[in-house]
């Protein structure tokens, strides 16, 4: 297995990337082929990500499976360095799982199928890339690669939402999402340039996260510099993480996107932002992070409350889930901002748990919409009568999201609260109120839409298809599994969090 050990990280980027390229050459008149091919690619990716997660030696800690390839030599110095640690390993696994789920569920894509899977696999490659690289240039490269396909994925295959008084078109949502994310990434880009110039003035210009981390650890980057550069990363990456008040692209984008894309986007892509804040902001600019964390935790709390209140007032099922993502990403941001080992560990676990949970929710909402062609929660009533498995899965996902003990969400949120109680008590109390609000809108959905009295209009609905049942079932098992036995996940995450500076 030693050869796999050396190449696993390289392969996990190249397999979906080459998959995307090869998909272009599949016959145009047989759309099914593209789907089967994408399944094959994403199964390989899932196996690779499982291998990476399982083979990560949490006893030894640190960065493992490291490989480095020179890309451009001096004077610019860019290497493609790959490595994985306790924070990225669970997220790689998350992307492997959600990518396969999203590909499977996209069986229903019938127009320009080939193009769809080209873009979906490119998106997957970008996300894997961000999680495995150890170089700022390539981190940004893959970050942009993950954003690039979104415009077309939403604009071509998405759906518009009619609010009665106005129509929120998919073109509008796609453009909004794309411009927000690119606007966020320009801040990141400026931050990266500032760091590079700083390292050049200190002697060796470098993009390597390891070298820059060593510079930061040795204290040669002044606090003043850190304090003005950190907000670039905090806001830049924060946009992708749904940071209030830059979150508005997220509900619109998630709702307009086709189901598979919503799953990947809410499930994995938003985590790139939070991951970037940890990996780049906290590690390279620890003093800057310390100075800005009070603001970040405040905004995170606003995220939790604002997202929850907005979700309560939505009448569109998918918008409820979209705003609940904004709310739950607030816990991630809060956990990061505590700079406390338990809080940050909770944030990373919440990334994983929310990724699975929200992907599951979007899958189920998509299944309802495919059959009923409507998402209004005042019209959809008593779906349990016809869609039993679907409703059962939704109940599990909803309970995980409101933090029911025994499901993964509970452990993650509990850890975030513990971290916050130790550092920012008043905000922690507000966040607990947010969790209670989550219970309000989730239970309302369950009580009315799924378990209420069935509207005769929905007699004809059929239950989830075998594919939906299989994907949903696996996600449910993971939610319960992590909830009752978090140890395999937590011991990896704890090793990663313990090595962060300033904690």
């Amino acid at each position, binding site marked *: 297995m030693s050869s796999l050990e050396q190449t696993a990280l390289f392969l996990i980027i190249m397999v979906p990337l080459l998959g995307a390229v090869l998909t272009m050459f599949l016959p145009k008149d047989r759309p099914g082929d593209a789907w089967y091919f994408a399944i094959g690619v994403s199964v390989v990716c899932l196996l690779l990500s499982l291998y990476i997660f399982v083979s990560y030696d949490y006893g030894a800690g640190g960065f493992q499976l490291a490989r480095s390839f020179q890309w451009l030599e001096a004077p610019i110095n860019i290497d493609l360095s790959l490595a994985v640690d306790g924070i990225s390993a669970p997220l790689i696994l998350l992307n492997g799982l959600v990518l396969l789920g999203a590909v499977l569920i996209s069986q229903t894509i019938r127009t320009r199928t080939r193009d769809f899977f080209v873009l979906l696999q490119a998106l997957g490659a970008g996300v894997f890339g961000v999680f495995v690289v150890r170089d700022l240039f390539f981190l940004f490269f893959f970050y942009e690669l993950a954003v690039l396909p979104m415009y077309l994925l939403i604009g071509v295959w998405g759906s518009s939402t009619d609010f009665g008084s106005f129509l929120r078109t998919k073109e509008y949502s796609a453009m909004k999402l794309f411009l927000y994310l690119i*606007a966020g990434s*320009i801040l990141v880009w400026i931050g990266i340039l500032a760091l590079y110039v700083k390292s050049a003035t200190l002697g060796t210009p470098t993009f390597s996260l390891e070298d820059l981390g060593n510079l930061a650890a040795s204290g040669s980057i002044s606090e003043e510099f850190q304090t003005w550069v950190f907000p670039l990363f905090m806001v830049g990456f924060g946009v992708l993480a749904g940071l209030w008040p830059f979150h508005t692209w997220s509900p619109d984008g998630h709702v307009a996107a086709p189901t598979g894309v919503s799953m990947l986007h809410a499930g994995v892509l938003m985590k790139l932002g939070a991951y970037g804040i940890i990996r780049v902001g906290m590690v390279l600019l620890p003093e800057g992070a310390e100075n800005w964390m009070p603001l970040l935790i405040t905004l995170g709390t606003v995220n939790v409350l604002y997202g929850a209140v907005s979700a309560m007032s939505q009448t569109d099922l998918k918008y409820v889930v979209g705003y609940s993502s904004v709310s739950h990403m607030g816990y991630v941001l809060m956990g990061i901002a505590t700079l406390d080992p338990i809080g940050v560990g909770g944030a990373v676990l919440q990334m994983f748990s929310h990724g699975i949970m929200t992907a599951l929710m979007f899958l189920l909402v998509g299944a309802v919409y495919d059959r009923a062609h409507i998402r209004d929660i005042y019209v959809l009533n008593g779906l349990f009568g016809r869609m039993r498995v679907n409703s059962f899965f939704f109940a599990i996902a909803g309970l995980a999201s409101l933090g029911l003990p025994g499901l993964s969400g509970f452990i993650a949120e509990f850890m975030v609260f513990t971290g916050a109680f130790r550092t920012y008590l008043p905000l922690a109390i507000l966040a607990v109120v947010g969790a209670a609000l989550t219970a309000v809108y989730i239970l309302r959905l369950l009580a009315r839409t799924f378990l209420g009295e069935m509207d005769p209009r929905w007699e004809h609905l059929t239950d989830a298809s075998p594919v939906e049942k299989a994907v949903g079932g696996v996600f449910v098992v993971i939610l319960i599994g992590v909830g009752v036995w978090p140890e395999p996940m937590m011991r990896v995450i704890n090793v990663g969090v313990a090595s962060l500076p300033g904690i």
Partner: protein
Amino acid sequence: MPELTQNIGLLSPEFALAGLALGILAIDLFLPDGKKQVTPWLSAAGLAGIIALSLYMLWGRQETLYGGLLAVDAFSLFFKVFFLGLGILIIFTSMEYVDRRLDNPGEFYGLLLLSILGMNVMAQSRELLTAYIALELLSFCLYVMAAYAKGEPKSNEAGLKYILIGAFSSAILLYGVSMIYSSVGVTRFADISLALGSAGDVSPALWAGLALLVVGLGFKVSAVPFHMWAPDVYEGAPLPVTAYLAIGSKAAAFALILRLVAEGFVPAEDLWSQWQIIFAVLAAVTMLVGNLVALAQTNLKRLMAYSSIGHVGFLLAGIAALAPSSVLASNGVMLYLVGYSITNLLVFAAIIAFFNLTGREEIVDLAGLADRQPFLAACIAIGFFSLGGLPIFAGFAIKFYLFVAVATGGFLWLAGLAIFASLISIYYYLKVIRQMYIEPVPEYVAAGSEREDGIVYEPEQNLSPSFLMLGVLAISMLAVVLAGVYPAPLLDLIEAASQAILPGA
């Protein structure tokens, strides 16, 4: 004068190119009307031969001719091969268009070859007047080519506008050269830098001369505020000429500016640090205005004109960051020129192919292109994503490299502004992509018809781009991806070229 002409053999590629151009013009006279299609093939084959000759003769040489007027070094060889290669691809993209729409194809290709000769000399001249003559050779060919569609008023207007503004800017340039000469008494780049370095206080006349030089060159590369001619000329000129203007003439002008600044300004460090600001401000204004005005365009050619103005802003930012001790900025500018040129070639080749099929060139005419001509739509989309600076295409790598160079050169604010300007550009590129991928196919597409240009078009579904076009598109698409994923071999060449003009680095 033996010392001036002893190594004149090093100019054989230029002699060969001049011979080829005149040969094409002469052969054309004797070809019957039906056989004139042979001229582009002859021209392309000749260019390929000259590439081989240049590489064979000049690889690794570092010499000067005519007592330092012309340089034969890695820098000139790099641009020479680049221009000749571009010339071949431009010929291939023009063939179908010229065949169907323009008279006198022989002269068209003859002028094209002569203009390439001008570009080659621009890249190797190390003296103001030599550079000026080379620039004029390029410009005169372009004036004629812009007006080549004799019957079309817009093309005539473009030619007239171009020659008036061109003559005006040449006069400014020449006036600047004469004022510099009157102040310091030299015109070689290296001597100018010596004079500037030792001058202490710079006299007002010298300042004015340098300023006029910058203004004149600003007109040639269409930097804001000297850009007004570009959109009209781009719109009116025949499409292949527009492509050539956007790609070739710009690259040649920047090759000249790069050598002029690197050899003439940069070594005089005190003075250069003041002039850097001027270039930086020029760059900032150019990138902002170009990209903002592009937002409002509805015609594809005008959109490309303003987009190219925006890219000129980025390139000027790279010029502003040139430093005596580092080749980073010079590498960045050259890499950007190559990446920008191949991306633009991809886009223009696709637009020309589309125009050959339909005779249309408004942005709305692209509606539903992803269903009508998926390959062309993919080419334009990839080209626009690349111009917008997204991976895995050339645009990302070249922008990143250039902006790193600008930031490292002490202009972090300018790099930030450039990044912001690229965000603006993404919006208008996406508008075109939206037309192609999201809007439905218009109804008229199914039916063939006669358009204003008098050509009867077949229904589009029966048509596909010619094999030659598909070949050019495939090659440039591969190049765009390759430059974005693995630019290291290209950068090795560029590094050698930078060392040639910045020996101190």
